[in-house]
């Protein structure tokens, strides 16, 4: 076994996992506030990527302008989505709300490539493509920077949940009726969560867009994000960091070790196996809160 290759794959896997974790963090953010598993998070990442590309290429803005413009636009897009679609579902069974988010995912995946054109778009955030070697060890600059930015964003989200506004959102998550009764504007808190989640999705969309280009396939990030959110615990932001590292490592090592043995690409199987095993063995994930129904 080539230990240097294992080391390369491991380091790369950790950082790729952190990039996936950023998409998962958006799912957790919404779940923590409104109790909904948002299946449109992959499409929001794709939408963020397209928004960034549109501001960068169509509007011709420099990066210091297009990036904030995309983040602000997507914050309002997320909040608007909650206001126009999700809020109308108040009182409906939770499965219908989740189906609605799935419908939004499918709709965005159809509309955006149709509107912007279906070819892959270039999104340049200035990461050099020249190889980076530390001794004989190869490090992928794009995933290194992407993983670091993702980790920083998730840490900011954790800090945010300890701020006054974050505590309000946690209160909304714990008991919406009680929050209403003490004067918390529950709808506003949920809209804020959707807006912030869209911002996180945009950062993820930009990082992945810079790595692979912007096209519909960004929406496939949902599968990895779901695996990470389920493994880490749907209501745990620190959980997504740990789970992201586990999923990224497992995928990367599977590609290097299992693929040559079975003669096929096993990368996506890893995510599916993690989802299934977690749900069977520990449904609330590694760090999620176990919900106990009192009867």
């Amino acid at each position: 076994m080539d230990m240097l290759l294992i080391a390369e794959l491991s380091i790369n896997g950790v950082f790729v996992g952190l990039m996936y974790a950023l998409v998962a963090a958006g799912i957790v953010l919404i779940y923590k506030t409104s109790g909904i598993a948002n299946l449109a998070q992959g499409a929001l990442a794709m939408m963020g990527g397209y928004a960034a590309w549109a501001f960068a290429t169509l509007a011709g803005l420099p990066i210091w302008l297009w990036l904030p413009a995309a983040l602000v636009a997507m914050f309002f897009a997320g909040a608007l989505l909650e206001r126009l679609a999700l809020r109308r579902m108040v009182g409906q069974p939770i499965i219908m709300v989740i189906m609605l988010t799935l419908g939004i995912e499918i709709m965005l995946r159809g509309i955006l490539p149709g509107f912007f054109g279906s070819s892959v778009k270039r999104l340049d955030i200035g990461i050099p493509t020249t190889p980076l070697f530390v001794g004989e060890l190869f490090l992928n600059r794009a995933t290194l920077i992407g993983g670091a930015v993702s980790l920083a964003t998730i840490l900011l989200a954790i800090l945010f949940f300890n701020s006054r506004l974050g505590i309000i959102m946690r209160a909304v998550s714990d008991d919406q009726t009680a929050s209403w009764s003490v004067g918390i504007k529950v709808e506003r808190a949920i809209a804020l969560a959707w807006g912030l989640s869209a911002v996180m999705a945009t950062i993820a969309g930009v990082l992945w867009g810079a790595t692979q280009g912007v096209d519909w396939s960004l929406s496939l990030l949902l599968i990895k994000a779901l695996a990470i959110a389920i493994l880490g615990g749907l209501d745990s932001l620190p959980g997504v960091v740990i789970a992201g590292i586990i999923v990224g490592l497992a995928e990367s090592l599977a590609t290097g070790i299992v693929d040559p043995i079975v003669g096929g690409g096993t990368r996506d199987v890893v995510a599916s196996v993690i989802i299934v095993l977690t749900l069977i063995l520990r449904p609330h994930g590694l760090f999620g809160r176990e919900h106990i129904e009192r009867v």
Partner: protein
Amino acid sequence: MTIKRRTFLAGSAAAAIASQFPIRLASAQDNVIRFSMPQDFTRVYTFVTAEYSQGQRDYLTLINERGGINGHRFVADVSDHGNDLPRAIEAYERAKSEGAVLVDPLSTPVARALVPRALEDKINMITAFSGRSDAADGSVFPYVLPLSPNYWTQAGLLIDYFRQVDGDLSGKKICFVHIDTPFGKEPLPILEKLAESQGFELLAFPYTPPGNDQSAIWPQVRRARPDWIMFWGAGVGQTVALTEAIRNGLPMDRLSSSVWLSESDMEVVGAAQAAGVMKVEPCVSGREPRLIQDILAEVVGAGKGAGPEDKVGTSYYNYGVMLASLMVEGVRVAFEKAPDGPVTGEWLNAGLRAITGFDAEGLIPPTTITPEDHQGGGQARIGRWDGEKFVAETDWFSANQDVVWEEIRKYSAEFKETGQ
């Protein structure tokens, strides 16, 4: 409400007449040759379809503007099947009822599903760069026409080019990075045979579709220290492969791919950084060929272009022109053979299978389609990206056709026996 017998019979008669209407409508349109082009504009083949279709439509407009062929004008029925089999079959049946003599679905799963229908209905199905590679055997697939080098041929061409450059491939190491789908795995049998006969080591690296994350693949390729690398995918898989190869510091002039690499891919990757990478070119790319110049002058210049002007002359646009020109040449030959028609699938088939030495005014290699060989000789050339455009690295050539045809006959015989 009750229905009287007379009302029922009258209604049934009206429905029966109405069901015949599309056929009568089609046959009433004198001097029209209908080509059906249900293609995937929205799902999997999005990376190519828009430009390919634009090239096809622009070429047909050029011919129509010049008066058509033998007084017949072309109608291109373009629709979106989204790589979805029920939608594609519906489009095919609609085309059949409207009198189409040719269908071009540009999708491997769709083409494979339509093979039995095309053979039974005697409607010519074009499967360029898609569909079954064994359809090159015209004796088994008379109405399925690839009209282009299949993936086995493309792999054989690249290996021969490596041999031409290195002199001998014995002891060399060739990495094959491919999407883990039937399309991606298709060249493997040919490559394995050539590895055995020419003495090179073949290392295959499959990646999960669609290939948007290959970061764990390319470090393995780099560490294998290959002499040559072939990457085999489409759309985002190709741009990611190329980007990761650059990030891993692999030499671009040892990197090559199939026909599925375009100028748009180079823009995504970074045109200058990708300089040196090679692809199989089934036709000339760029705007220099005479036909492209004619389209620019007579179609685009007249405001009748089917899409953005900046796409005219891209690789995939020219693929569209290439295939449309072969279809039209088939019509011309069919008229030579039977000037009075009638214009049917069988009539066109006789023309398509008798195309001889056609080069589309220098756009494509001299192509001869016979009742046995639907591939057209398996000629192409190697093009190299110079930072701005693909330039020819070789002249038109064919290679390793003995190995390729062995494989073609093996699978076509299996189809003949089992229908699979």
